[in-house]
């Protein structure tokens, strides 16, 4: 919320830049939700590359703030301009939750068929955003994934699935830690995975259709989770789990894979730590490149996304620099990377694991039901 004035100023500036008749120079406005590192990625990594091959274009990177709130601001911006002939957002980077709404409201251009890299994406998340069909409108910028981090110094063999993990936690009280549901998304992802693992119809939770009576069937799963919680440590936040792993206070806990590798690269986690994506699966989420339906510089926007989703850029920027999983299919990116980099990202969680056990978050109404049922049955 605090970023609002800055954002408005930035948008006003970019609008002013658009209005100036700067000869044949095009200003491409790339608006991105997410943390500062997303803006830096566009500004410092993508923009110079794009401007080199398109000397007549200047890229302006604008950030709208972290979390779903950032995507919400982009949506509001587009809704406000709905009546205008041309909109001043050329490329946007948004969270999965917002993509469905924007497609339904007709605010996005079905651009994927027009860019060469569109053919390199076949993942489920490129077609389905928490229950809405978004095929043709989005290309994932990256995929982030949760997994269980474990300390080989304290754990001999990591559990392979949620049942084994529950048994392990019982045998090793207070050696597993996660951050509940009120302290960040890695804990939420762990709980969602638990519900997927312990309820009969997880496919329905991911794909719908929604039925308000489904949650009545979760009592058993949540009762088990309450029991499980007695033997684990509840950590303060996503970073709290990583901190406790680093200090050896817990031996295992759910983390975001990209955060895990970034912390390791910064020396905040021992390099011996490992990851395990446990079955039947844990959720992850992509961020999407989208182009608004009436983007002022449609042609340049398509070129920009094409470059940003090319195997070279995905390898160098997304995988190597930021430790994210590629947005386009992994096999196209592997060829561009040296083994060391590739191994770092995929040695513990293989592309095969990702395909089989990388789940999506549930559709919105089930998502809310899971969190509220957790509050009701596990916390109370």
């Amino acid at each position, binding site marked *: 919320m605090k970023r609002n004035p800055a954002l408005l100023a930035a948008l006003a500036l970019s609008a002013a830049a658009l209005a100036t008749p700067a000869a044949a120079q095009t200003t491409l406005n790339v608006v991105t939700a997410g943390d500062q590192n997303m803006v830096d990625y566009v500004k410092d990594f993508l923009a110079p590359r794009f401007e080199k091959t398109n000397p007549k274009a200047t890229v302006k990177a604008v950030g709208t703030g972290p979390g779903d709130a950032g995507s919400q601001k982009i949506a509001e911006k587009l809704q406000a301009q709905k009546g205008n002939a041309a909109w001043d957002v050329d490329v946007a980077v948004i969270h999965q939750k917002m993509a469905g709404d924007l497609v339904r409201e007709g605010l996005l251009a079905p651009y994927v068929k027009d860019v060469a890299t569109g053919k390199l994406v076949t993942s489920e998340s490129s077609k389905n955003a928490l229950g809405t069909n978004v095929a043709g409108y989005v290309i994932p910028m990256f995929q982030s994934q949760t997994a269980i981090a474990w300390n080989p110094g304290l754990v001999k063999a990591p559990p392979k699935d949620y049942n084994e993990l529950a048994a392990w936690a019982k045998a090793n009280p207070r050696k597993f830690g996660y951050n509940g549901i009120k302290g960040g998304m890695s804990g939420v992802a762990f709980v969602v995975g638990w519900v997927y693992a312990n309820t009969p119809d997880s496919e329905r939770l991911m794909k719908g259709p929604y039925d308000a009576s489904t949650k009545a069937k979760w009592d058993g799963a949540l009762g088990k989770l309450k029991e499980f919680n007695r033997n684990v440590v509840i950590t303060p936040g996503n970073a709290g789990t990583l901190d406790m792993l680093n200090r050896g*206070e817990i031996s295992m806990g759910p983390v975001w894979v990209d955060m895990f590798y970034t912390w390791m690269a910064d020396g905040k986690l021992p390099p011996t730590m490992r990851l395990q994506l446990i079955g039947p699966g844990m959720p992850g989420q992509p961020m999407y490149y989208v182009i608004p339906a009436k983007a002022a510089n449609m042609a340049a926007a398509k070129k920009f996304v094409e470059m940003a989703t090319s195997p070279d850029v995905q390898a160098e920027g997304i995988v190597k620099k930021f430790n994210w999983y590629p947005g386009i299919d992994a096999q196209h990116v592997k060829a561009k990377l040296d083994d060391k980099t590739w191994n770092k990202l995929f040695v513990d969680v293989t592309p095969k694991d990702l395909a089989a056990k990388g789940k999506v978050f549930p559709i919105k109404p089930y998502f*809310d039901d899971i969190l509220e049922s957790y509050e009701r049955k596990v916390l109370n």
Partner: protein
Amino acid sequence: MQDRGRLGIALVAPALAAVLVLFVYPLGYSLATAFEAKGGGFTFGNFVKAFEFYSVDIGFTLVIIGLSTLLIALAAIAIGGYLVLGENPRAVALLRWLYRWPLFIPFVVAAQCMRSFLAKNGLMNNSFVALGILEIDQTTGFLDWRGIVITFVWKQTPFVALLVAGAMAALDRSTIEAARNLGAARLRVLVEILVPQVKPTLVVGLILSFVTMMSVLSVPLMISGESPTMMTVDMAFRINNYGDYGTANALGFISYLLTAGCAWVYLRRQVRQS
């Protein structure tokens, strides 16, 4: 005369407008939304939900902050008392210099420091182990309700101590000296002579601390992920995860009521004093 009246209104207007726009309006707005159903219309549903989900947290909040307030009172009296009654000038000077530091540290920074200080293998326990006071397997982490209390007490004690020490220093020293001459120990002087005389100041300081602690989100969020948790965490959770301002505002309303009780005591005391 009328001109002076107008001038007075003109002078007070900016301040009054600021209070109305920045305080009274948002307060009224959030109170009103606490009673508003999702589609509009009057409801008690938000309160039903708040109590159904968070009654334990409301109680927990009161216990945590009540306990913290009590500990702050004891620590502030001890500090103020030593500053007035201490006989070692160096120790008094050192204490006077040290005790105010946490005043200048924001809650979020205090929480961040405590988070690594109080952890099971954090700085505090590691120091104990290095000094040979504890074995490594005897240590426990304090990142739960105890961590919240420790952080609150650490952060708020200087504020109350500042007020109390000032009030104690302003007392007529002859009462203290008379008691000492008659053979009263320092502790007895503190409890029977000093504290009763500074009680109004002490209570005001504690009430202001209580109200401040009621509003802190960063400390419970960063120190403890455990449940039950404090009401501020629940409010943030309702908004961030469900976009549910109704229940969040109902919780806010409840915390207004709790602090209003304190404010009433404060105002009554102010009125009596003036």
